């Protein structure tokens, strides 16, 4: 079955009345759990999984995929409105999204996030449909050395995350790496820095940490202000992006989509890394990098697009190889299995109704979510009209529910509280939390792939230059590190006119 016929067939499956209803329910629920921090798509899908036992496989998978997509759309809402990242992938959106909201442009930020998500999600699907097979073969080529090189590249983006001192940003990233090393050693399963506490055996989780550093710290910083900076003293300007904003965000969406598209295929921390990369690239190519962190629309458009493109393309390894590249898709993989369907190379021939039905329903889901989310924007913006004295306690409640619901663990509330206080102190000492989150996310991947590579090569670093993909990524790394220096030298050597 070629792509077009397949898609038409898929649409006929997806348009069946009960499948349409399930898709709608999935999108709605996904939006709800996406907006709530903490309880992300993983939680929602696993809670609903037993309820889908009675459904036919295609309908069940369609609904669960709808939840995933819906959650990806809703993920940025709290980042923008109240600086609470619901998941690691929307931590970057806090930087400029929240800054925009403080300037009364929450509507614009939410709008560009939704449009960016729609465009990127759809492009990702086209990629999944047309070149999924070859791409998944490429993804398999990524072994430990290749990952190591890509992650090293990710670290160079610290340079672009820093708004103030570069040295301090590097220190933050390194601290993030150290924090991420708490827990079991990924190779030898020894305990490291756990002090005998069983809650630390698997390390700190990123969501409570990010919620604390961003959301709770922001509440602490604002609580103490004598004349509280009114979030909404500023009038809410236009709800949707206007033409000039569109023009500024246009290429950001395209670049974000491309980055997310490729990073999504890679098993491992693809989507999260893609948001940091997309943000870094935007700041790199921007003519006004100084505006980033103070409400640059590109700083919202790029990571949100990357996030959604990655969400779409992460289905590629699942559907074509039977390999779920992230935790959400691992749960979805379980759902496939429960319904007696094995995702993998045989899916398209054995269960065409599921393969094409799911793809078609994801196209439709994107449209439904666009229609669903746009009218919600004016509603979300109203949240900012709530007086501070009510809003701040509510944000605290939100933070602690979010931290708790990741693993149903009171310990995580403690982690969130600790990092809330850390974030408050960082603010006092002029440090920024974003590089710390980057270090925290990449640290374990960096370590495990470095050590696996060294195990494979028996201690020789030659393994990183012998393999073409790794070599190219390393060269890009070197260029990315050297480029800012060259520019700095050029600037200083140029006579001041």
């Amino acid at each position, binding site marked *: 079955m070629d792509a077009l016929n397949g898609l038409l067939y898929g649409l006929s499956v997806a348009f069946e009345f009960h499948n349409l209803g399930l898709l709608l329910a999935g999108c709605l629920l996904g939006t709800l759990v996406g907006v709530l921090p903490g309880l992300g798509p993983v939680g929602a899908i696993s809670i609903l999984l037993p309820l889908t036992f009675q459904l036919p496989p295609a309908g069940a998978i369609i609904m669960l995929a709808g939840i995933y997509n819906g959650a990806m759309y809703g993920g940025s809402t709290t980042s923008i409105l109240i600086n609470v990242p619901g998941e690691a992938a929307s931590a970057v959106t806090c930087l400029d999204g929240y800054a925009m909201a403080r300037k009364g442009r929450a509507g614009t930020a939410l709008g560009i996030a939704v449009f960016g998500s729609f465009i990127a999600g759809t492009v990702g699907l086209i990629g999944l449909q047309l070149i999924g097979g070859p791409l998944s073969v490429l993804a398999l080529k990524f072994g*430990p050395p290749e990952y190591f090189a890509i992650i090293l590249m990710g670290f160079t983006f610290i340079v672009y995350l820093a708004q103030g001192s570069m040295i301090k940003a590097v220190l933050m990233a390194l601290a993030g790496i150290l924090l991420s090393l708490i827990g079991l050693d990924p190779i030898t399963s020894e305990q490291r820095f756990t002090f005998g506490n*069983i809650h630390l055996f698997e390390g700190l989780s990123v969501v409570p940490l990010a919620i604390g550093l961003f959301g709770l710290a922001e509440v602490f910083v604002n609580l103490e202000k004598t004349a509280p900076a009114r979030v909404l003293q500023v009038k809410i300007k236009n709800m949707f992006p206007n033409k000039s904003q569109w023009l500024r965000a246009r290429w950001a969406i395209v670049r974000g989509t491309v980055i997310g598209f490729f990073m999504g295929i890679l098993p491992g921390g693809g989507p999260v890394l893609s948001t940091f990369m997309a943000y870094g690239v935007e700041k790199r190519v921007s003519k006004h990098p100084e505006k980033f962190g103070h409400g640059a629309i590109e700083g919202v458009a790029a990571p949100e697009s990357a996030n959604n493109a990655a969400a779409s393309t992460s289905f590629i390894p699942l559907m074509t190889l039977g390999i779920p590249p992230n935790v959400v898709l691992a749960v979805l993989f379980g759902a496939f299995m429960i319904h007696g369907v094995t995702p993998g190379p045989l899916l398209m021939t054995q269960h065409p109704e599921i393969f094409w039905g799911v793809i078609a329903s994801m196209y439709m889901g994107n449209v439904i979510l666009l229609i669903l989310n746009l009218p919600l924007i004016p509603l979300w913006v109203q949240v900012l009209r709530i007086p501070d004295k009510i809003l701040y306690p509510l944000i605290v409640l939100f933070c602690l529910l979010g931290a708790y619901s990741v693993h149903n663990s009171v310990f995580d509330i403690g982690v969130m509280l600790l990092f809330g206080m850390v974030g408050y102190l960082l603010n006092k000492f002029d440090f920024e939390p974003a590089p710390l989150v980057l270090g925290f996310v990449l640290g374990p991947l960096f370590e495990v792939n470095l050590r696996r590579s060294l195990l494979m090569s028996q201690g020789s670093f030659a393994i990183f230059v012998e393999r073409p993909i790794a070599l190219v990524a390393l060269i890009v790394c070197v260029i990315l590190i050297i480029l800012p220096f060259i520019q700095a030298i050029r600037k200083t050597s140029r006579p001041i006119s």
Partner: protein
Amino acid sequence: MKNHSRFFVAAGVIMLVVISLICSGPAWAEYPDRSITVLVGFVPGGSMDLSARALAKSAEKILGQPVMIENKPGGTGTVALAALLSQKPDGYTLCATPSSVLIRVSQQQKVPFKPFTSFKTVIGFTEPQLGLVVKSDAPWKTLKDLTAYAAKNPGKLKYATTGVGSTTHAAVEEIASKDKLQLIHVPYKGSMEALTALLGGHVEFAALTSELVPAVKSGQARLLAVISEKRSVKYPDVPTMKELGYDFANDAVFAIVAPADIDPAVMKKLEGVFAAAAKNSEYLETLDRINMIPVYYDGRAFDSFLRKHWKIINKSLIASGAIKEAATKPE
């Protein structure tokens, strides 16, 4: 104003009391008079979670009360077991756990319970399909081919497992030590990552859990041997490691446990219910779909299983240098 606030405080207190009455219910009713919670120490969607959900669903039909799964991931599965002990031993909270948490993790880490004596086992109900696989385009057709090649090329073959000290790692160690092979171990986090590495050609062979089944079915990988006492129903032609002369079998059985000080009458009821639930055909079908093998251990059989494998694992962990002595005392 003062009167008003007093009124509201009083109203709040009354409301809380009412809610508590509704929730707790009468204490004299026959067990079970409300829903039962089964803690799972792993994230949703994994084989432990899915198999526990399937069994819970089957059990609630017999019990007449909902059996809810509550995921408490953390501490490689030990957080949920510790959480079980912090609950009242009234039979309304149970925990689903792999035997490996009791006998393997407890030796590697100091855990806040005694693996042999803190719990009573309601049922040991299923085990994963373990096996040794190569890529389907690899030249080795049997395990003998593979070991013969490895013997001729020491330090050349790389293999992936689900982690250092895991059952899969121990299985390959057993082969390597018996045939005196020099292999390079590349540990991964879980079976899916290890399978990805195998399919990408980054390692030559892998020891995997149930995730191998779909890959073998779709022709991406070839199964050389299964790691279990008996041959698999799915692969009657594939030999077990024991048949090939390696004294090693699976030590990972998934079980439902209760706190040791549970009321014997309640325990008896639970044992009966879960034994019957494990025979349900719909449940067995679900197990097959998620590539798990049904087994049955009652409390006593599971206890001797634990004691037997504690010693075997202890020996292999010390031999591989992972530990010097068991981190937790078993009783």
